């Protein structure tokens, strides 16, 4: 079994990354999971969160929101509606996304409200993981 797998991170506008990796940590809807070479073929949707790809040259971290991951034994493709490098996930961007999620949460009712509230909390958590604090709640 090979000890690396192909990792593709694709957004609708462009391809963000295409590198060999040894493991990728994915924020799945039902919980985090780490995919390594030889993983069972697998498709999961994503919640907003941090993707950590381990390469020979170290870790690469991305923030993603919405989309899905397609895992097979030798490749993993992440299709994320929005994704950016963790370094680019700055305080203003974080605030902007939080604000957007907050508006969505407050405009919906019933089950949609709960889903949006979770979306909001997930973004908050992603920010916390990267050491960002919401400047206003």
């Amino acid at each position: 079994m090979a000890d690396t797998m192909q990792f593709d991170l694709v957004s609708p506008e462009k391809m963000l990354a295409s590198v060999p990796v040894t493991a990728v940590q994915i924020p799945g809807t039902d919980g985090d999971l780490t995919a390594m070479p030889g993983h069972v073929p697998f498709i999961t949707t994503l919640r907003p969160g941090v993707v950590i790809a381990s390469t020979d040259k170290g870790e690469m971290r991305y923030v993603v929101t919405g989309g899905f991951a397609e895992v097979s034994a030798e490749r993993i493709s992440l299709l994320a509606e929005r994704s950016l490098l963790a370094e680019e996930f700055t305080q203003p961007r974080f605030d902007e996304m939080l604000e957007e999620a907050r508006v969505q949460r407050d405009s919906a009712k019933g089950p949609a409200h709960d889903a949006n509230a979770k979306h909001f909390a997930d973004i908050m958590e992603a920010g916390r993981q990267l050491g960002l604090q919401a400047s206003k709640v």
Partner: protein
Amino acid sequence: MPSLKDLKNRINSVKSTRKITKAMQMVAAAKLRRAQEAAENARPYAQRMEAVVNGLAASVKGSDSAPLLLSGTGKDDVHLLVVMTAERGLCGGFNSSIVKLARQHAATLASKGKTVKIITVGKKGREQLKRDLGEHLVAHVDLSEVRRVGYQNAREITQDVLKRFDAGEFDVATIFYARFQSVIAQVPTAQQIIPAPVPEDAEATMLYDYEPTEEAILEDLLPRSVATQIFAALLENAASEQGARMSAMDSATRNAGDMIDRLTIEYNRSRQAAITKELIEIISGAEAL
């Protein structure tokens, strides 16, 4: 017979027109390259999305819990046409050919007794459709402030469309745009997006494990798939528009060149005629002495 001065003026005005069309052609060429790149970059996402959705759709098809976006509302009464055109003119038959296709489609549907609703994207299509299908227009998306179409634009359109679908405002949605084939050929295309068409030969991919369930993933992915298709259509349209403008401006430039040649010949002839006339007058005057 126009005077020499008139001819000179016309030649000059055609010359400045040629300068403008030439410049527009070059601008269009540069924009076309960028638009093509954008369309190219969007392809991997769209392809994978389509592959996964098709695989899922094939395995969920027929089950009662299939999402409405896939199975449809069970009716076929109200059709929504999303007509995407450009914000600007001077691009040959680009806008007209999309509108023409949409109009034909609307006429066919109307003759079958269906209700037609139209959302227009881009000013030009709206202007043309307002005349005869004005009462069918339900919304308009203005992209004139947008310099480069991004995914965000597609998402806004999609949200509007999906909101209407959830509210039961229509049963079937079709988008109209021009697929980019080459600089000289753009193919107006109608593409059904809701309910999601499943190709006949799509096979259920039993290969994968799904988390959460197949239905839940599909529920999440179908709206994104709609957005992706609209985004791809917007990009294709942008490339087509620039392509059409480029070839329209190319032939305009060439026409202006031909016109200048013709006018110059006419100008020279009448100048020569005037000189000859003056000579005759002088000579016959001298002979009379």
